[in-house]
């Protein structure tokens, strides 16, 4: 019937092809029919028997999660046996009765349990975990009534154990059940619903290494679902251990020092950037989450006004206050705007454009040069130097020393902080920069914001010859120290562009802060070795108050944040700390004594 578009030759060829195609189609269908005949009729009885005895089940064997150690090999996070209650939906006779019984016996919430059972309805022979980490009493009760609870299975699985409770919670992180989005994301290819994965901190950052490889066994079960024999088994590959750079004892000291307060402490090895301690307060005991997250506890923690889940060391953004004078001093020297011999008279205030900027010491400091201005933290001196420099030059040095950008710590998420410039303000507020703002910027107020870990990095670089290291919290990852997969060498981000002589001038002044009469950081002084540091008192409310402590009687949430950054020993720097205590008042009286405790713990042990 090809009328117009086929010539006779084509028609003949086409028809031949159709015939051949028909033969091919028939041949392939016959192959399928033969295959089905073979499976269903010839081997049918064999497969029928197999299906009737199909009591083969796959059981997961979860791998043992790797341990987390401190720098000296002390165990921080390990595993201990956890008795978990599972239900095999298929073997349950009366589901609502079972859930009622479980509610009566072990206070299981029947609603959420029913939800969990329905969620895994597609695979009724796969055990569903309803209760993790049962107490001994619960275990005894369930074992006693187990005969009346068909479908209930108790499994002993490794459960996470945070040896020191809330120690370094923000760094270590915690485990939680994998969410549906995480399962779908394809980032956890080895995971199944119900698995516990790292939700924050080291547990999340090193999830893949810690988790290991899932194993499994194929077992045969009887009519009741009891195991008869193992048919084949694939052993799980246990997870790698992660050794951190933190020092357990120093961490403990830091947390105790912050107990009952809000704030953060970061201690770094100034010669490598290794994190020796990283504390944020208030803290949380991650053992609370091991048995699955209890909703009431979780709500209480997540909704607390103290934000215990926030890692203040990395994401707490505070004005650097007087600590920032270090940067203004370095910038001034390097830019030739400050002569260290030049002295300025501080009457206790400074006038600019009809506005009065007070010095924290109302009666004034008299004649001060750079050294005295840093030692006694004279505001008026730095108002003038800041004005000479201008905000953009100050900003350049602030960035050079690591402010305004996350430091790049390998664990957790950081905030950038904020280093204001003229163009930033114009862009953000549509208003030009005011000179008065330069004045307050030069004592670390106005818009300037920094995180504690940035402060620790900054003070480290002043004392290690101007090197900015990337802070690292991981020492090695692997089976053991001798058999490790990764080891982490110090990583230099940059060398700051500041003359050594200028660094020396500032270092000398910072030694003076702690060791000279009238120095603001004298409460961190030691006899055996030299400490250097700088105090800061960050304003929470608009008014600059008397730093000598007259703000004792104002409400706590209006009190200033106390800063102290310090390094010891100056001759051979081993530890650099940045301490912030929210609403702690004066840096010299609140934060400096904490530094002393930390140095004591780290440098004077044994």
């Amino acid at each position, binding site marked *: 019937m090809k009328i117009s*578009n086929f010539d006779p030759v084509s028609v003949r060829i086409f028809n031949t092809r159709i015939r051949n195609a028909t033969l091919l189609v028939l041949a392939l269908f016959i192959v399928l029919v033969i295959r089905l005949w073979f499976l*269903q009729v010839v081997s049918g009885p064999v497969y029928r028997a197999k299906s009737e005895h199909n009591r083969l089940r796959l059981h997961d064997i979860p791998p043992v999660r790797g341990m987390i150690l401190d720098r000296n090999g002390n165990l921080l996070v390990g595993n201990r046996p956890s008795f978990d209650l599972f239900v095999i939906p298929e073997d349950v006779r009366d589901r609502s009765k079972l859930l009622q019984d479980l509610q009566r016996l072990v206070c299981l919430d029947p609603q959420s349990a029913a939800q969990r059972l329905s969620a895994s309805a597609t695979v009724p022979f796969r055990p569903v975990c309803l209760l993790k980490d049962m107490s001994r009493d619960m275990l005894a009760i369930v074992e006693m009534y187990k005969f009346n609870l068909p479908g209930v299975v108790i499994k002993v699985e490794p459960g996470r154990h945070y040896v020191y409770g809330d120690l370094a919670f923000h760094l270590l992180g915690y485990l939680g059940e994998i969410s549906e989005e995480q399962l779908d994301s394809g980032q956890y290819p080895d995971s199944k619903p119900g698995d516990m994965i790292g939700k924050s901190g080291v547990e999340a950052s090193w999830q893949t290494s810690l988790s290991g490889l899932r194993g*499994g066994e194929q077992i045969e079960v009887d009519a009741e679902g009891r195991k008869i024999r193992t048919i084949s088994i694939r052993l799980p590959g246990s997870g790698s251990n992660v050794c951190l750079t933190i020092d357990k004892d120093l961490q403990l000291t830091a947390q105790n020092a912050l107990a009952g307060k809000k704030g953060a402490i970061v201690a770094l090895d100034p010669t490598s950037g290794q994190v020796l301690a990283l504390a944020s307060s208030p803290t949380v005991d991650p053992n609370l989450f091991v048995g699955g997250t209890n909703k009431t506890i979780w709500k209480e923690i997540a909704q607390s006004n103290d934000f215990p889940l926030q890692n203040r060391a990395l994401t707490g953004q505070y004005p650097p206050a007087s600590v920032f004078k270090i940067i203004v001093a370095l910038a001034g020297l390097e830019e030739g705007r400050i002569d260290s011999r030049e002295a300025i008279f501080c009457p206790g205030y400074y006038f600019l454009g009809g506005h009065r900027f007070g010095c924290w010491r109302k009666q004034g400091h008299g004649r001060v040069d750079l050294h005295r201005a840093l030692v006694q933290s004279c505001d008026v001196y730095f108002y003038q130097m800041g004005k000479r420099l201008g905000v953009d030059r100050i900003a350049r040095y602030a960035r050079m020393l690591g402010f305004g950008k996350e430091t790049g710590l390998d664990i957790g998420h950081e905030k950038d902080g904020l280093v204001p410039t003229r163009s930033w303000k114009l862009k953000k507020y549509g208003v030009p920069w005011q000179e008065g703002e330069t004045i307050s910027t030069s004592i670390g107020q106005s818009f300037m914001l920094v995180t504690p870990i940035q402060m620790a990095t900054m003070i480290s670089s002043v004392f290690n010859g101007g090197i900015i290291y990337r802070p690292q919290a991981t020492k090695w990852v692997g089976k053991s120290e001798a058999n490790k997969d990764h080891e982490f060498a110090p990583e230099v981000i940059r060398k700051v562009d500041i003359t050594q002589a200028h660094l020396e001038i500032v270092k000398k002044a910072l030694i003076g802060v702690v060791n000279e009469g009238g120095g603001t950081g004298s409460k961190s002084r030691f006899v055996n070795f030299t400490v250097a540091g700088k105090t800061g008192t960050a304003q929470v409310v608009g008014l600059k108050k008397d730093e000598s402590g007259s703000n004792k009687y104002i409400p706590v949430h209006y009190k200033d944040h106390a800063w102290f950054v310090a390094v010891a020993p100056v001759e051979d720097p081993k530890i650099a700390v940045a301490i912030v205590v929210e609403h702690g008042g004066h840096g010299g009286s609140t934060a400096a004594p904490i530094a002393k405790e930390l140095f004591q713990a780290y440098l004077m042990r044994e």
Partner: protein
Amino acid sequence: MLDRRLIENWDWILLLLLLLLAAISIVNLYSATYQIRNMGGSQIFVKQIYWYLLGFSVFLIMTTFNYYKLLQFAYPVYFASVALLILVLLIGKTTSGSQRWLDFGPISIQPSEFVKISIVLVLAKFFGEGDRYHEYGWLDLLAPLFLIGLPAFLILKQPDLGTTLHLTAAALSILIFVRLNWKSVAILAVPVICMSPLVWFVLKDYQKARILIFLNPDMDPLGAGYHINQSKIAIGSGQFWGKGFLHGTQTRLQFLPEQHTDFAFSVLAEEWGFLGSIILLVLYLFLVLWGLNIAKAAKNRFGSLLAVGIVSIAFWQIVTNVAMVTGLLPVVGIPLVLFSYGGSSIVAIMASMGLLMNISMRRFMFSDGAGLPEK
């Protein structure tokens, strides 16, 4: 629009085959998802009914115009569908590690299903319009091979190996029906065949595992081998008469993976036995042979090649799926056409069946002015 002659030439056999297959599919899905439904799962078979209603509507729409008109839309349709594939790679929804879906609020579509038709359309145009005395040499084939290769590559990137292979096989089948210069085809084919072992190195680990499992099913009875073993037990245990509707134990106990999609045939084979499986296969055989018959009766080369392409899409999907669930081929994740659950698949295939009906209805009609240019 439809005149009386067209209604007289309405292809009742094709329609009957499609209705039978739709009915069997829905009944089978009712059983396959019985367990999930009992435990409060979703009403998959009801959704399939809706998809089929939509599918038959599209089917009817596809018969209302003369398929000639498609000649001018072939390239726009083709490039639009390729654009959708690129969109999938950019903003597609990721499920279990592969990106195959475009999300439109409550529904998501799988563009690769529609790409299959557009490739067939564009190839039918390419060869249908060509000089009919011409023997195609290897240089002539570069353009059509590019037309096939572009979407195939994009689908491989998703990654979806099964659909890539299926699409390539279906498209290449069209070439068999044009006048090829066999020597020059051999020049093209020999190096490709020689290179094909290299594909091994491109495959993902799970894909390699499936092939190794196929070669040695007992290698990993816990992992990749588990599904195919359970599928064979399901099919084999159906024996001659089957275990009866809703009485398949493998199905009930959910031993089968993906039993509403890729392994839907295993459910049928378990419950309806050899007899039921053969009836379904015979229906498919009729559909394919009837389609070839339509191709043969079509009044021009474009229609013939379009029909052949549509048939080969369905045919390769039937053969690979049944071979896969019976353990004759590695598990590559191809659903059974018109039978497995899947909205995009049903709508796309019903659209192509509508075109087949269109060609069949107009088999007696003369070229009505919009015809192919005479060369």
